[in-house]
């Protein structure tokens, strides 16, 4: 997904209205799409089965996709299962999110080398790869837009993110299979992807047909579609694609009532529920690692044994660690209660103050991958309901 540059040279995410010309491709057309992206120099990243989970990894062929697989998700629970069909995208999101490519978990940011006069600093080269993401759901597009604001919206744009983001080609997926922990409808993030993509696919599978409706979201997307075999979509195709999204919207595994949530959390930092959740929370940081919007990082410095060179590495970090808030003499957030409160209040409330939106997209990963099944929607419900009881009013 390219974006325009303003006079201040600040990149802004592009917003395309889908064009009217929707098309239909089949499985061969999908392979042609992968080939066309490769031919244009993109490394295609998409869903694959690895170690009993669906993760995002490089792929070349339609046969690399998790054909016939689905997932069953609940609090602290994730299992792959066989579907009764040959669907290629018949599952929800797994433990990976796309942020690992634009904001790498571990990234050298510069090196220093000793010289006679002192030392020199050596910058990292621009990224060599151009990525095409295949199968980006609406919740994940929302997460990309949120991270764009975090990394590019400030007075000093994060160059590493900007350089990776600028080259990105996005093939979105109109989500056909929500999981038991999904609540994108509550967060207004899905299931329909309406902007922020180059192309968007809706998978439509029936006993004797397997095809994809293709929506175009950018010039680059239009150019790729023109290069692969397709036919114009009929009214019946469009209705069928809409029915896929309607079905997804009606099968959300979770709901979250967001009314007044900014005040609900910021106004109750001493609510007893924070103590209660802390008795279950292991402060393992899983929720922050799988979250597609969590952006916190740390840096590490390494020196060669000779002492002649040093380097700085930036790594994903989590507000659940004790070290995160360390200030000479001790950490600010010593108790797990304070760390869980920081994470959830930031995600659902103070994010509005900082970036003008919620930090949650309703993807459900934090619920699924919590080893003890802590459920962010349940935590909000508990605080809200206790306050509506007359004894707490």
């Amino acid at each position: 997904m390219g974006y325009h540059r303003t006079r201040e040279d600040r990149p802004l995410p592009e917003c395309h209205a889908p064009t009217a010309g929707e098309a239909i491709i089949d499985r061969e057309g999908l392979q042609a799409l992968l080939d066309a992206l490769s031919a244009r120099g993109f490394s295609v990243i998409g869903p694959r089965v690895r170690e009993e989970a669906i993760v995002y990894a490089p792929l070349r062929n339609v046969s690399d996709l998790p054909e016939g697989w689905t997932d069953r998700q609940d609090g602290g629970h994730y299992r792959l299962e066989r579907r009764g069909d040959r669907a290629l995208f018949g599952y929800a999101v797994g433990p990976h999110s796309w942020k690992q490519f634009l904001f790498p978990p571990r990234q050298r940011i510069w090196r220093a080398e000793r010289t006679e006069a002192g030392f020199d600093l050596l910058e990292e080269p621009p990224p060599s790869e151009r990525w095409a993401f295949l199968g980006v759901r609406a919740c994940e597009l929302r997460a990309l837009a949120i991270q764009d604001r975090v990394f590019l919206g400030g007075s000093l744009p994060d160059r590493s993110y900007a350089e990776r983001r600028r080259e990105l080609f996005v093939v979105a997926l109109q989500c056909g299979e929500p999981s038991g922990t999904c609540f994108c409808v509550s967060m207004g993030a899905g299931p329909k992807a309406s902007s922020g993509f180059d192309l968007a696919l809706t998978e439509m599978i029936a006993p004797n047909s397997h095809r994809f409706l293709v929506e175009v979201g950018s010039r680059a997307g239009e150019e790729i579609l023109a290069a692969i075999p397709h036919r114009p979509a009929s009214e019946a195709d469009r209705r069928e694609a809409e029915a896929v999204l309607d079905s997804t919207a009606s099968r959300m595994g979770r709901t979250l009532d967001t009314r007044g949530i900014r005040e609900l959390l910021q106004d109750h930092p001493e609510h007893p529920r924070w103590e209660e959740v802390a008795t279950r929370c292991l402060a393992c940081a899983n929720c922050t690692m799988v979250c597609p919007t969590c952006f916190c990082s740390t840096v590490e410095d390494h020196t060669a044994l000779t002492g002649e060179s040093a380097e700085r590495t930036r790594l994903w970090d989590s507000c659940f660690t004790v070290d995160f808030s360390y200030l000479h003499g001790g950490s600010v957030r010593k108790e797990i209660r304070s760390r869980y409160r920081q994470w959830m209040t930031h995600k659902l409330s103070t994010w509005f103050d900082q970036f003008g939106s919620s930090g949650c997209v309703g993807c459900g990963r934090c619920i699924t991958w919590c080893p003890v099944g802590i459920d962010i929607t349940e935590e909000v419900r508990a605080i809200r309901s206790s306050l509506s009881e007359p004894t707490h009013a």
Partner: protein
Amino acid sequence: MRSPDPFVPSLFRVDRVWRESADTVTLGLLPIQGEIPAFRSGQFFMLYAFGIGEIPVSVSGLWGQGPLLHTVRAVGPVSQALCRLRPGDTLGVRGPYGSPWPLPQAEGGDLLLIAGGLGLAPLRSALLPALAERERYGRIALLYGARSPADLLFGEERGDWSSRGDLQVEVTVDHASPAWRGSVGVVPARISHTRFAPERAHAFVCGPEVMMRYSAAALLGAGVPPARIFLSLERNMKCAFAVCGRCQFGPTFVCRDGPVFSYDRIARLLSIREL
């Protein structure tokens, strides 16, 4: 052309080192190439010691008046490495970052500068311009507390400040030495010994957080409006431009929205334990 990488420092050379106390030095830094970037009193820079790491340090001097001045106390690995630097040594510098002391806003009234320990360094960068334009302010007072007489910073300069007729200087220590003839006790207790008109005063406070909390309470008690009390907060930070997430303080980023905050903006946040 590639845009600049905000994580990459510029190289500076140590021009001078002043020893302030057994564990504290002031570094005078000059850029190896180009100029010292424009900064304001109360802002901070990130200082990098080769192979060790990087820490935020407030400016203790003024822009346009010689080298970039930073006063550093050796408490952790990076600050210890910075304190070992000698004239001619190289270090990485990036900045400035954060909000300044609101000096223009304080003009026309009295100005209280309340410092605890190393907090005197950032307040020196507010005191010097106020003294340089002395006629713009009413009474000016510096209240300064340290652990012991041996920990007091800017000794010679403080002598000059104390001998001025237009500046009240109150110095106190937690633990006196036999030779100490000054006052003993905490800084906030000196507020009641200070001549100022609370209704038209501004107070800038910098020091350990507990000292700033008690100072703010004492100032409020004396009648200074909360919107005219300014604290300089400290939090763990790695980037200094609001992308590493670590310095969050409620809805604020201390690196971007602070470090200097008006008390009315953060009073409620300060009341929340482990925020």
